């Protein structure tokens, strides 16, 4: 068991003129499940590959379990990995695939057998041990890749978008299973994905990355509820956070002729423009003749089964509103929306950074 520490890691690919990872520092505690999430090209896979030893950083260090491994080849870092394309060996049977790491470590035969069988059992592969990968389905191949990674009992487990090649239903099933297995093993895990839902559901902590930097890192719900910058709020969550520009004026946010109460902490922004953000599920709809809240008109209503997703237009532009399935609305209906001050987040309109 070991934690992973990354310090000031810099990498520029020869073909690119931009840094793939730009001075990243990161601490993963022993036994923690950390998810690196971000849009493609944000440097998350590069970061993972540098921890794995498959890519050499231009600067900075990687420490695993207190040991500086920056200059060590992958095989001496004591880690294991699940690849996006599975990367299981087609010329070996499932048994040999799962035991590959143990074979390389020259583990004696009886122990080799028990460990391979234990890993296979954990992933429901016992019946397939004597097949070749070509005779397995995509989901089973992914299980082989995971079984191979856990059979070696490595200190650190790396996963590079392991679920992205599975179909939607299988992905959902396997996601929960993966979380259960990793929790049971207690291995320090670094997990890369571009899927924000996957990141939220799996990680003890989530690191949202953008342009080679970590934009925000924290517990999934913390990051979700309190995005540190506009980008994070817009990336995490489905639908993403709503943003609108407003002017602070004497304790309220003014948008056109509409106004919303503003918290006292915004006093220093009086008569200045500000970017406000709110999650779709935090907006409440007030029907009837009530006068509080802001006016809006329904543009689209999308029932999703457990909820209804509304796209409404108001003075501040477009808003996504999530509401209970009981509500009956049609496009063109006029509503009043309440934007609770506690659920609003405020950002600098120029930098997009959260206001303290």
């Amino acid at each position, binding site marked *: 068991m070991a934690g992973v520490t990354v310090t000031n890691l810099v990498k520029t690919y020869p073909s690119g003129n931009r840094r793939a990872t730009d001075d990243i520092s990161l601490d993963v505690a022993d036994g923690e499940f950390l998810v690196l999430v971000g849009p493609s090209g944000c440097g998350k896979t590069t970061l993972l590959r540098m921890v*794995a*030893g*498959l890519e050499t950083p231009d600067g900075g260090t990687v420490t695993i379990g207190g040991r500086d491994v920056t200059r060590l*080849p*992958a*095989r001496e870092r004591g*880690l*294991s*990995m699940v*690849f*996006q*394309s599975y*990367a*299981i*060996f*087609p*010329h070996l049977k499932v048994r040999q695939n799962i035991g*590959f*790491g143990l074979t*390389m*470590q020259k583990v004696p035969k009886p122990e080799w057998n028990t460990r391979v069988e234990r890993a296979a059992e954990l992933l429901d592969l016992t019946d397939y041990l004597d097949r070749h990968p070509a005779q397995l389905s995509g989901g089973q191949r992914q299980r082989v890749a995971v079984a*191979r990674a856990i059979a*070696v009992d490595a200190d650190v487990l790396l996963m590079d978008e392991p679920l992205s090649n599975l179909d939607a239903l299988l992905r959902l099933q396997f996601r929960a299973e993966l979380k259960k297995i990793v929790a049971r093993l207690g291995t320090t895990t670094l997990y890369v994905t571009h899927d924000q839902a996957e990141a939220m559901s799996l990680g003890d902590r989530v690191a949202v990355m953008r342009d080679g930097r970590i934009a925000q890192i924290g517990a999934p719900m913390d990051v979700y509820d309190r995005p540190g910058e506009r980008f994070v709020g817009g990336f995490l969550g489905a639908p993403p956070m709503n943003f609108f520009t407003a002017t602070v004026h004497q304790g309220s946010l003014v948008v056109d002729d509409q106004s919303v109460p503003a918290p006292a902490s915004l006093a220093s922004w009086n008569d200045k423009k500000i970017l406000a953000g709110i999650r779709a599920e935090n907006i409440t709809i007030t029907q009837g003749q009530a006068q509080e809240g802001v006016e809006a008109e329904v543009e689209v209503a999308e029932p999703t089964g457990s909820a209804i997703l509304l796209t409404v237009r108001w003075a501040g532009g477009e808003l996504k509103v999530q509401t209970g399935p009981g509500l009956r609305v049609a496009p063109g209906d006029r509503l009043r929306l309440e934007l609770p001050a506690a659920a609003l987040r405020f950002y600098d309109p120029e930098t997009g950074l959260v206001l303290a």
Partner: protein
Amino acid sequence: MKLKVQLACAAITLFMGAPLYLITLAALSSRRSLNEFPLSLLPTSLSGETMSTFLQSTGILGGLLNSLTIGLSTVALSLLIGLPAGYAMARYAFKGRDPYQLALLLTRALPIVVLSVPLARIFLDTGLYDTTYGVTLLHTALALPTTILITSAIFLGVSREQEEAAMIFGASPLAAFARVVVPQALPGIAASAMFTFVLSWNEVLGASILTLNRRTLPAQVLATLADSPLAFRFAGGLALVVPALIFIAVARRYLLNMWGTTLR
């Protein structure tokens, strides 16, 4: 339409097969039956006499041994040089990669005769003239372009991630290559090796120019062709054709594999 295709297939097969059949028939018939008229097209008087006389005549057995030695050394040498080159072409983007690939093909644009005469001079100076080593070097140079291009295409078929996975799980780069890449590339490597062997076996011009006494089989047959009896020519022809046939029989599956066809 279907009939026409069938006919065309039969015609092409006959065009290739009939001379082969006639050579085999003549080489395995008794010498007397060759002069009969009309010539029997069925194996009526089979005899190993022609073949055994052919094999016992001067230079033939030696030529056979030389050809085998040169063929096998060429395979070994061209794989030794060609596999790393093919691997580099498949895995790394390096400066001058495309010109290098083109230059490889250009070496085949030079006629062997043009290549052989200056080579003979150099070999005379260095003491390589009239040795199996000299011919091996020439044949390796001839075989390398195809070896490199074929093996690089095969290495491209093994994903880089598989090698990386092997290295993550404790393999050194060499072990990853030996345990993961080679087993998957083996059919292609075998096909390219057989291709090289047949190329060396059939190459006659360079081998004739670069040797005097240590002739390869085709060079020996060519040299003695003019003043040998008809039966010998057939026997020589058969001796030259058989390895190619064996090659095709063995390599057929791999070759189809190599070009990505699933035909069986």
